[in-house]
């Protein structure tokens, strides 16, 4: 038998069997055996070695941890089997203990054996039971009579007679029952009658109730309809009145406002609220523009005149200087003539008079020639002036006439 394993340690690896010294097998059976010691080392009996087929064998997976409860149970079973075995061994008949001073020893008994040679004579006898027969039932067991017999005399009518005794009781019972049931039947019948009557009454009552409710409902509907109609009528009247009021108010306001419109228009147009857009545009837009243009034109005119003035001045000055020169020349000539005359006079008098006459004739012819172009120029300058001044007046007048 496998040795009981020490409780498994909670570790990664445990060795399956405890290490131990190999023992010599005992030749004879010992009185007491050490349960912890191993009895054999034969591989054929080793529990850990599988014998036979392994199909139905329940093998635990190698890695699974054995269930502690299962393990404990198996240990318990093993322990119990062992205890049983031990008890059985102890119960086995054995030779009694040796007497005091002696001792059991193992003896070879062959020498003392004796063959039993005298045989007892034997004879074989046999018997056969009869076939089964129908057996009557065993009679009722009647115990044997004991005691003393005693007898007594009973006369007619002295004994309990069921017929007589039961009669009054039965009569009472039947009578009571019948009475009771009659009462109950009557009760039920009365109830049924009442119900029937009630039903008949209810039939009438329900019909009447419904009729009453129907009429009530009808009345209610009629009343509602009437109210609705009245309300409608009232509404119509109200609307009519409202319309009449509106119409009268309209007429009144129309008559009241009839005069108002022309007067208002009059006032407004007087105040200038109504205007001609063309006229307004002319006034607001055209006239300022026109004035601007006129001013511009006038300015140009003035500028022209100023320029002309400048030219005139320059011409007049140059002329003036030219005359002045001429005068000087003349004067010097005269002076020279005078001087010459004087010289001539001094020398010969007639020659000096002719010289002075030639000098006066040349001065007269020169003068008209220089004045003429100057007069032409002034006339040319003054003429456009008058035209410009006259023109705008005429234009405005025409346009104003057109607008009107």
């Amino acid at each position, binding site marked *: 038998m496998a040795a009981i394993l020490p409780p498994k340690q909670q570790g990664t690896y445990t060795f399956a069997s405890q290490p131990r010294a190999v023992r010599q097998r005992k030749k004879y059976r010992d009185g007491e055996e050490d349960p912890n010691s191993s009895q054999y080392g034969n591989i054929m009996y080793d529990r850990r070695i599988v014998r036979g087929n392994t199909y139905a064998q329940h093998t635990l997976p190698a890695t699974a941890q054995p269930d502690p409860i299962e393990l404990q149970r198996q240990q318990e079973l093993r322990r119990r089997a062992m205890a049983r075995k031990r008890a059985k061994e102890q119960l086995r008949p054995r030779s009694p203990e040796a007497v005091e001073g002696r001792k059991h020893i193992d003896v070879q008994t062959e020498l003392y054996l004796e063959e039993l040679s005298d045989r007892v004579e034997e004879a074989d006898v046999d018997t056969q039971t009869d076939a089964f027969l129908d057996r009557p039932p065993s009679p009722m067991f009647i115990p044997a009579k004991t005691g003393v017999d005693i007898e007594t005399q009973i006369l007619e*009518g002295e004994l309990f007679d069921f017929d007589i005794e039961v009669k009054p*009781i039965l009569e009472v019972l039947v009578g009571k029952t019948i009475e009771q049931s009659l009462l109950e039947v009557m009760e039920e019948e009365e*109830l049924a009658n009442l119900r029937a009557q009630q039903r008949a009454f209810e039939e009438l009552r*329900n019909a009447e109730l*419904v009729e009453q409710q*129907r009429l009530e409902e009808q009345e209610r509907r009629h009343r509602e309809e009437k109210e609705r109609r009245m309300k409608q009528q009232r509404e119509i009247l109200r609307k009519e009145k409202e319309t009449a009021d509106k119409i009268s108010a309209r007429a009144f306001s129309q008559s009241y406002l009839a005069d108002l419109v022309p007067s208002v228009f009059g006032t407004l147009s007087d105040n200038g609220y109504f205007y001609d857009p063309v006229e307004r545009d002319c006034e607001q837009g055209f006239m300022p523009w026109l004035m601007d243009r006129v001013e511009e034109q006038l300015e140009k005119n003035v500028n022209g005149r100023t320029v002309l003035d400048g030219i005139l001045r320059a011409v007049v000055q140059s002329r003036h200087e030219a005359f002045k020169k001429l005068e000087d020349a003349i004067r010097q000539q005269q002076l020279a003539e005078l001087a010459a005359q004087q010289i001539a006079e001094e020398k010969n008098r007639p020659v000096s008079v002719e010289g002075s006459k030639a000098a006066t004739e040349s001065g007269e012819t020169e003068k008209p020639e220089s004045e003429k172009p100057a007069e032409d120029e002034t006339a040319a300058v003054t003429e456009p002036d008058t035209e410009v001044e006259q023109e705008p007046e005429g234009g405005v007048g025409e346009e104003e006439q057109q607008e009107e």
Partner: protein
Amino acid sequence: MAKTVISALYPPQIDVTRTPLAYGDRAIPRLNRELNDDTLLTRQRAVRSLCDHLHDPEHIAEALREGIPTSLKKLLKDPDITVRQKATESLYVIAQHAIGRDAFLEHGIIVPLSKLFDDKEDIARKNAHLAIQMISETTIGAEGIVNAKLVAKLVDKLKTEHDEIKELILDTLHFCMRVDTTNALNANAMQVYTDLLAHELTSVRAKTARDIMDLSVPLAGKDFAVNVGTVEKLIGLLQDSDPVVRANAAGGLMTITITTKGKYTAINGGAIEPLVNLVDDPNSEVRANSLKALTCLSEAPEGRATLLTHVEKIKTLMHDPIPAVVKAATIAVKVITWKP
């Protein structure tokens, strides 16, 4: 067989399950005493005897005088089922009489009795419902039930109880709704009834239809019925094989079709044809109710247009042997042929 000889021996206890009654006037006081006994067996026997004894109407007044209702009220809370069952049965018997119903209200038995609606024994529940139904038959009793706020509970029970008890509850509610319908409407009874209309028992269907008729008497009930879809179910029941179901279905329709909404729901649901077919039913109530329903439907222009083709059939009913039918037929013809 009969002989004049009578046994000298006094007969032993004939029926061990019942207390032997004391003679004459002493019977009730003795029973009352034993009802309050501590021993269970004594109580059981007493209550059984009492139950039988009360079936005789002559004994009711005396029992009430002796204060039997008080003792029974106490026994309603008894842990033993036999005692409870028989006590409720006794109360049912008492409730069949006018003075008994008065005593119920006087002693306030309705509320303790209604506690037994939740009893786990069917027989006790049934007897309790029987007694309550009996009380509800009168207006005062129905008022008592309504005041005890039992209507909502009853409507609730209607969903879960056995068919036999359902009938009793429907009866009770029928009477209660005569007094007050708001409680039932608040408990959503219309929906429950509408679901019950498809029940397989004719009596349940008939009683449900009747309860719908009661519940739709007020305006709110009619609106509820239209919203919940009761009208279509009722139209389906008009072709039922049972005359009572037909009568009550027609009755339900006649109450619902009072309102304009109800009328149009019924007309659109095709109620006119089956109703016209019911006009010559052998049952007078069916005839009367269907005529009333037709009268209501003919107030709508569409209904009138359809019914004008059936006037001749309705006119034949003006010679019916039942005066109520004649009256209903006359009104119906008048309404159908009315011209604005």
